[in-house]
């Protein structure tokens, strides 16, 4: 069978199985196993445990449960509420101030958590009712939480960049350094959009009334509870970006630090620690098994010559390097509508990575670009994780269609951010060059 037919066969059956609703981890795994047996003989299936064992004892990947645990501990010690409360009082006087505060609080949370769920759900519970009570435009409120919460996957410590670094063999410190500016750029775009909309149409987001604003003393008082968490995160991220500690080490010590902060605040005990750890199992198990399954699948595809096939098809097509990048980005956006980000990363990076290097692009740049792009996958219906998270906690008057519609302008902004990062690669590469390449 020629490689074209093999490609159609195995990707076709994978899509079919996935759309039937079999979990991504098992559908990629089983299609991988079946076609390994078909193309290489039943004995070749014995390679499956070896692959899984390699991944499960991968030192770098252990940063995933550790960062998720750290975020869960911080969440249970009430840090999201503290941050939101602080930003709300500092920025509430702006038109659209509560929505802006939501974005800023989400950005700060994103620097503490590598995942999206916790921020999205908590902000949906504390910020959304507040905005709706203040007669904020429904779509604006929902959109701000959706877009803000999604930053968690881009701004370090990001789980996505750890997986990218592991699959692509690139430096996680450099990826982290490169992801800060694009993250702040997106956050800035969201804020500019909200502010402009609210100054044109003040009914969309009225400022907090004067009598509810705090004086200077009050403003500094709300600042104090977040100081320990901020110091912790500067230490954790600082050591990774500067290259002193491996991500896994920094994450582990970060967990300990987060627990101590929780203890000092009196909001953490043994029971809430075990709850945080059990919550971690849910997110980690899902991510790790999708990695295992997708790895079995893509390893098979590369063994039957898929890597070369994609390589030749893209490089031999006579298209310019930038067209190829655009094709890749378009493909990832399309996949993002249906498949979750772990699956997309695991399936595309082994194919794209070598091509990027051959085209002479910077792999660090491409890695961060992929992350900026994959943020959109959280907001693109029908399968956008953020949409589900927010819908699950939103009050009943916000319908699914409301949530979907509210994501659209912010999706547009994310796309603008992506294009900016492509036109001006320096947005991504400035920090890694400064820190690592002298």
């Amino acid at each position: 069978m020629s490689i074209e037919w093999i490609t159609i066969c195995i990707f076709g059956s994978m899509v079919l199985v996935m759309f039937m609703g079999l979990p991504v981890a098992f559908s990629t795994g089983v299609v991988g196993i079946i076609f390994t047996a078909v193309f290489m003989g039943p004995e070749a299936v014995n390679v499956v445990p070896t692959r899984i064992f390699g991944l499960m004892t991968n030192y770098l990947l252990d940063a995933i449960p550790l960062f998720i645990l750290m975020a869960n501990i911080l969440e249970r010690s009430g840090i999201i509420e503290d941050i939101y409360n602080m930003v709300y009082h500092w920025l509430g006087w702006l038109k659209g101030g509560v929505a802006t505060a939501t974005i800023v609080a989400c950005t700060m949370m994103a620097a503490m958590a590598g995942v999206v769920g916790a921020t999205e759900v908590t902000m949906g519970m504390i910020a959304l009712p507040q905005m709706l009570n203040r007669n904020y435009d429904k779509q604006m409120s929902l959109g701000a939480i959706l877009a803000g919460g999604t930053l968690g996957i881009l701004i370090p410590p990001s789980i996505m960049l750890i997986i990218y670094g592991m699959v692509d063999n690139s430096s996680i410190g450099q990826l982290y350094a490169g992801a800060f500016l694009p993250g702040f750029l997106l956050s800035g775009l969201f804020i500019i959009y909200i502010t402009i909309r609210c100054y044109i149409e003040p009914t969309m987001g009225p400022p907090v009334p004067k009598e509810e604003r705090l004086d200077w003393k009050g403003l500094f008082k709300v600042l104090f509870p977040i100081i320990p968490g901020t110091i912790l995160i500067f230490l954790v991220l600082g050591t990774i970006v500067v290259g002193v500690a491996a991500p896994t080490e920094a994450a582990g010590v970060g967990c300990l630090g987060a627990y101590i902060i929780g203890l000092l605040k009196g909001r953490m005990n043994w029971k809430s620690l075990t709850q945080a750890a059990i919550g971690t199992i849910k997110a980690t198990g899902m991510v790790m098994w999708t990695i295992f399954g997708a790895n079995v699948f893509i390893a098979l595809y590369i063994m039957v010559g898929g890597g070369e096939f994609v390589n030749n098809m893209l490089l031999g097509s006579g298209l310019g390097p930038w067209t190829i990048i655009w094709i890749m980005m378009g493909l990832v956006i399309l996949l993002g509508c249906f498949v979750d980000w772990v699956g997309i990363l695991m399936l595309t990076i082994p194919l794209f990575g070598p091509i990027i290097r051959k085209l002479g692009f910077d792999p660090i740049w491409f890695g961060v670009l992929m992350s900026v792009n994959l943020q959109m996958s959280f907001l693109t219906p029908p399968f956008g994780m953020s949409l589900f998270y927010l819908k699950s906690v939103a009050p009943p008057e916000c319908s699914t269609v409301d949530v979907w519609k509210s994501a659209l302008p912010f999706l547009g902004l994310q796309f603008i951010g992506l294009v900016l990062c492509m036109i001006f690669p320096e947005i991504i590469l400035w920090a890694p060059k400064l820190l690592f390449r002298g």
Partner: protein
Amino acid sequence: MAILRTFIMAVEKTNLFIAKLMAYISIICVLVISFEVIMRYAFGMPTNWGHELMYSLFGMYYVMVVGVVHFWRAHVRVDVIYASRSRRTQAIMDLFNGVLFYLFVLVYLYTTWKFYWSSQMMSYGNTFLGIEILGEASFTDWGPPLYPVKIMMPLGGVLLLLQGICWTIRDAHMAFTGREFK
């Protein structure tokens, strides 16, 4: 019916117990890595076992939690067609998916068991009271045995298989009667 109910309860209780156990393991991992970091950076005395102990424990953790994650239905799905169906249609779809699911689990079980067993049967010259103890050891300085980690792979597979059977019982009940299995 009563026996099925008991079976489901037994499996799910076991999986939840495993989840608790693994939660403690992850907390131990945090302590191990923190100890290692403190010894290395504060005292300049890195251990030769910290990293390896941590990633071995996490390796066990990943493969053992697969059952309970399936119990929570937290393995992410492509929801385009699935999510908008009625519960009964979902059950019927899941019965079809079951064929591939069991194929995956059985192949996983068979291959990981072989993988474990070959590791258990390797001779690394470890002796205990003059009798040779078989079993693969790691090549690192610390050199712990590897088979305790490898045996967790088929064990986790068994947990996943049992949990899958629980869902199949529920789905079958739903598909044939239109009511939840209680």
